[in-house]
């Protein structure tokens, strides 16, 4: 079914080595337009490293990375710019600029790439803040005045500033309480559906896998072991996957999913 879909990110034979430790040894992965792809793997399996390699924050030691059909493996910073404005990035703790208000944070990429009138910029920034599920009065607050969950939403607002086609999320629900995490998953789902986003989601959260992801890629032993729908992945025989999905947390999330599936998800 995936043959006719456009792959916006293609990773082929990606290799990453730190000193003598081989993190990735031949990672192959394709991300298709419009899907939410969850990437899971044990701590130290190289999920974040893979994301950084795709984003160009780390130069891979081997293999190729293609974005929107163009090879971006060895691009210089300047040549990368046209690609950068097509993806948005949410770091683990938001990575907001602490000396700027939330609205100013959202306006940083807008100012960098486009020359818009001030009032439109203000309103666009406010719209992104509201899209990220924050109240309007959060716009003039500084990151230190926000809770962890709100900082993530503010980071999401900044990631959405340029209307990206691909959204990279690095463990967006880590550090949130279960209710906040579920609300964040809902928010990502709503935005993905309405804005037609492609989402590359690095996560540890089993609930997110079941509730949010169209496909799940499992990173272990330096490779992507399987990349398919969660129903297929959870039946995979690899020991790490069995430990993950058959363990108490995986079973709980699956059970939860089965219980809530018939009812519509609570939205807000």
């Amino acid at each position, binding site marked *: 079914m995936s043959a006719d879909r456009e792959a916006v990110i293609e990773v082929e034979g990606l290799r990453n080595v730190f000193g003598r430790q081989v993190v990735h040894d031949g990672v192959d992965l394709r991300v298709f337009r419009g899907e939410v792809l969850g990437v899971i793997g044990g701590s130290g399996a190289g999920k974040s490293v893979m994301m950084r390699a795709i984003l160009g924050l780390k130069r891979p030691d081997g293999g190729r990375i293609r974005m929107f059909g163009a090879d971006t493996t060895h691009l210089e910073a300047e040549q990368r710019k046209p690609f950068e404005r097509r993806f948005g990035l949410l770091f683990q703790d938001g990575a907001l600029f602490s000396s700027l208000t939330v609205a100013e944070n959202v306006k940083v990429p807008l100012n960098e790439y*486009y020359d818009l009138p001030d009032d439109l910029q203000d309103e666009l920034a406010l719209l992104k803040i509201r899209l990220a599920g924050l109240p309007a009065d959060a716009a003039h607050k500084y990151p230190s005045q926000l809770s962890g969950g709100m900082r993530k939403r503010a980071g999401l607002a900044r990631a959405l500033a340029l209307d990206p086609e691909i959204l990279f999320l690095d463990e967006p629900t880590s550090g949130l309480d279960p209710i906040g995490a579920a609300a964040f998953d809902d928010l990502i789902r709503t935005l993905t*559906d309405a804005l037609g986003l492609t989402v590359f989601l690095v996560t540890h959260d089993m609930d997110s896998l079941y509730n949010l992801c169209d496909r799940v890629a499992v990173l272990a032993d330096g490779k992507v072991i399987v990349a398919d729908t969660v129903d297929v992945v959870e039946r995979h025989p690899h020991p790490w996957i069995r430990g993950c999905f058959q363990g108490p947390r995986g079973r709980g999330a699956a059970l939860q999913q089965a219980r809530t599936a018939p009812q519509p998800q609570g939205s807000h």
Partner: protein
Amino acid sequence: MAAAMPNPGPPDLAVEAGGSHLRLSGPWTLPRLDALLPRTAAARVAPGPVVVDAAALSALDTAGALLLLRTLRASGQPFEAHRIEGLREADAALLRLVATRLEPERPAREPHFAFREMLARIGGAVWRFIAQGREFLGFVGLTMATLAQVLVGRRRLRWTSTVFHMEQVGLDAVPIVALLTFLVGAVVAFVGATALRDFGAEVFTVELVSISFLREFGVLLTAILLAGRSGSAFTAQIGSMKSREELDAIQALGLDAIELLLIPRLIALLVMLPLLAFIAMLMGILGGGIVGVLALDITPGMFVSRLHEMTDISHFWVGMSKAPVFAFLIAAVGCLEGFKVEGSAESVGRHTTASVVQSIFLVIVFDAVFAMFFMELDI
């Protein structure tokens, strides 16, 4: 999927039927917004429901949706009152989402009262200064009490930690203290001799260098160097422990952070600052002496004998008496600022800066107080 025809042309907006019919075309997206802005700014939308024909719209993103909704705002009607035709389902979902999340009115910015804000800032700064002073005094009291308990043996002195800090604070600082005071001594001698030469009193350069270094510069330069070198290090060490919740762990384990962290650093400074000040005095006089020998025709023998005859030993004791006070100030400020760090790495940086500024400030203020005190005593 009514009209998903590709339209490579620029985005456009046509206003028809006296402003009650809008025809959108081309891509309404952020990168093309600059071409669209003059069109939407010129558009006159009639009051009342508007029909929007979006069949020729090739792409829409949130920025384009925002622009459309802004244009429709002039009609004075809510979004639901308008009829949108020919919009692709994906774009319609986006437009609906943006419409629900858009604020009806742009929130007014909080008005600025520059003068009032200035007064408030001054008041705040004065208040903070007073609060800081009180906090510091409280901390000094706590430190004194703990130190006394350690000295009478009711609390343990951490020897390993104390010796470690002595090495870091004292031994490792010897080269820089020696070099800098040597250079300052040479400069003082040179500048002094240039001025004294006009009066034929070049030989008084010896007293100039020896008295100024024994009384003031030796200990003052050492204290300022240690404030920058060790005071900041204390703040950064304790601050990063605080931000990693190590201080809470210390407390939860039933230990005392003052005893564990502050007392070893304080004792290390109390011991090492006088020793470093002594080295500083020697090196300053040596620097002055070398300038005297090389540039001023004062032989080493003459320099030493004049130093011996004309410079009273009391100058040395005046200088040395200040060393423990400066050591206490630097250690107390450095550690207090470390304890005041909150959470973030940024806070560690802020408090480290504050620690250096405050300890240098206090050292110089106390030096001035000492100078007046000894002047009144005629020492």
